[in-house]
């Protein structure tokens, strides 16, 4: 049984690579329209967590539920559910051989099996939502700036009409002056009700958009709650050290 508003539930997720246990029993749930932000130091397992949710990495133990369906149950057609989870990568991962609009249309024509003209309309809509104007639609990834690439990547995920969006450090590969346009888009989507899980190091952004902030450390969620409480008065020592560092780097203080 699922709660009415529940989109994603992760229960006791575990993953190890060789000897190293990278996820040590992660549990949380995300309700419809909720925005969860995950922060934590490098190597904490944040990317692994997001990839496990989309089954891009098979978890060792635990279960993942999307809108009441257990994705980790055997015999499930993963492709059918992956399309309902939008994934945005740190390195954009656009398809080099396709134009901006071609990138957005691929999933629509091949996975959702929409006719070309319908796919094109949806793709145009998605691109406009991320502020990619008509003049850029026929450009190839190599002809776009980093910020434009990442927004096209967001449109590509968005056009699939996912139940939830997962963002893995969406601005970490961008020049500082380009992060703003991408964060703005993610914020607009979140405000329009898009259920999201966002891994980021942008403290100011987390404060603005997060309904709940979770701190990951060494494969565990060590702290969670209201973003400003977690950021400005963390309880654990690990979180204190982490935020001291991030706040100094990010220049967001009180």
């Amino acid at each position: 049984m699922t709660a009415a508003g529940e989109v994603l539930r992760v229960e006791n997720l575990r993953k190890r690579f060789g000897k190293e246990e990278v996820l040590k029993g992660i549990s949380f749930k995300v309700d419809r329209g909720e925005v969860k932000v995950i922060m934590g130091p490098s190597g904490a397992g944040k990317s692994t967590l997001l990839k496990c949710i989309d089954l891009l990495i098979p978890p060792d133990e635990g279960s993942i539920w999307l809108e009441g369906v257990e994705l980790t149950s055997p015999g499930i057609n993963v492709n059918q559910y992956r399309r309902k989870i939008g994934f945005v990568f740190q390195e954009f991962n656009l398809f080099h051989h396709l134009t901006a609009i071609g990138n957005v249309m691929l999933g629509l024509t091949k996975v959702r099996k929409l006719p070309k003209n319908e796919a094109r309309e949806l793709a145009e809509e998605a691109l406009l939502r991320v502020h990619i104007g008509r003049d850029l639609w026929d450009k190839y990834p190599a002809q776009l700036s980093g910020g434009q690439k990442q927004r096209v990547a967001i449109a590509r995920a968005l056009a699939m009409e996912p139940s939830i969006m997962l963002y893995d450090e969406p601005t970490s590969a961008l020049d500082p002056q380009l992060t703003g346009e991408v964060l703005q888009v993610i914020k607009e989507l979140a405000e329009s009700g898009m259920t999201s899980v966002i891994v980021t190091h942008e403290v100011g952004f987390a404060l603005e958009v997060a309904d709940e902030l979770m701190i990951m450390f060494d494969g565990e969620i060590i702290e969670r709650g209201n973003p400003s409480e977690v950021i400005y008065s963390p309880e654990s020592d690990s979180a204190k050290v982490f935020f001291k560092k991030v706040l100094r780097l990010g220049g967001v203080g009180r």
Partner: protein
Amino acid sequence: MSNLQVLAKYLPYIFDGSLWSLGLVGAGLGIGFAIGVLMSLGQVYGNPLIRKIVDAYTWFFRGTPLLVQLFLFHWSVFPAIGLRTTALETSMLVLGMRSGAYQSQIFRGSIESIEEGQVLAAKALGLSFWQQSLYVVLPQALRKAVPQLSNEYSIILKDSAVCFVLGVMEIMTRTRYVTIATGIALIPYLIAGALYIALTYLGAKAFDMVYSRIRIQGLVTG
């Protein structure tokens, strides 16, 4: 008629051989392409058993002379499995299987050069393995492979001359007949050589043209 006049009369006969040679090359490249694509996918994404099989296949076809392969398949393997092939058919199949081994190595390299992230993104969209290969990996990998395919063309063109041992009516076989009929060796072989050079040149030009047409805009890679 002087021998030279006889030779002039035979020239078109040699030239017609180039159609046969090109037929061998076309079939070899085509069959080799299908084999090469499947085997390279098997080698990059397949399980250990599939990789072993592909390895053994490429070792055999790259490690033995074409002449051995032609005789082996024409006189032993094909008859043993009940295939009654003509010399032309054997030659096309063997050139194809041989080229498949080489092309699988070419494609393997170009497939491995596609960033893993793109495959991950395709997966995340919900594309199946074959869709990922067909719509994301291969369109890029095959583009990158065109210069090496051009090279493979020039190699297989010259390989095709060996098929004269089965009596396929390609350039070499015909040239030999002409030398026997006219008693002149030098000029016919020079003509045959010139034909091969011309076909190599034209083929390379054609591949260049294809390559410049399908290049991905803005992407500066080899």
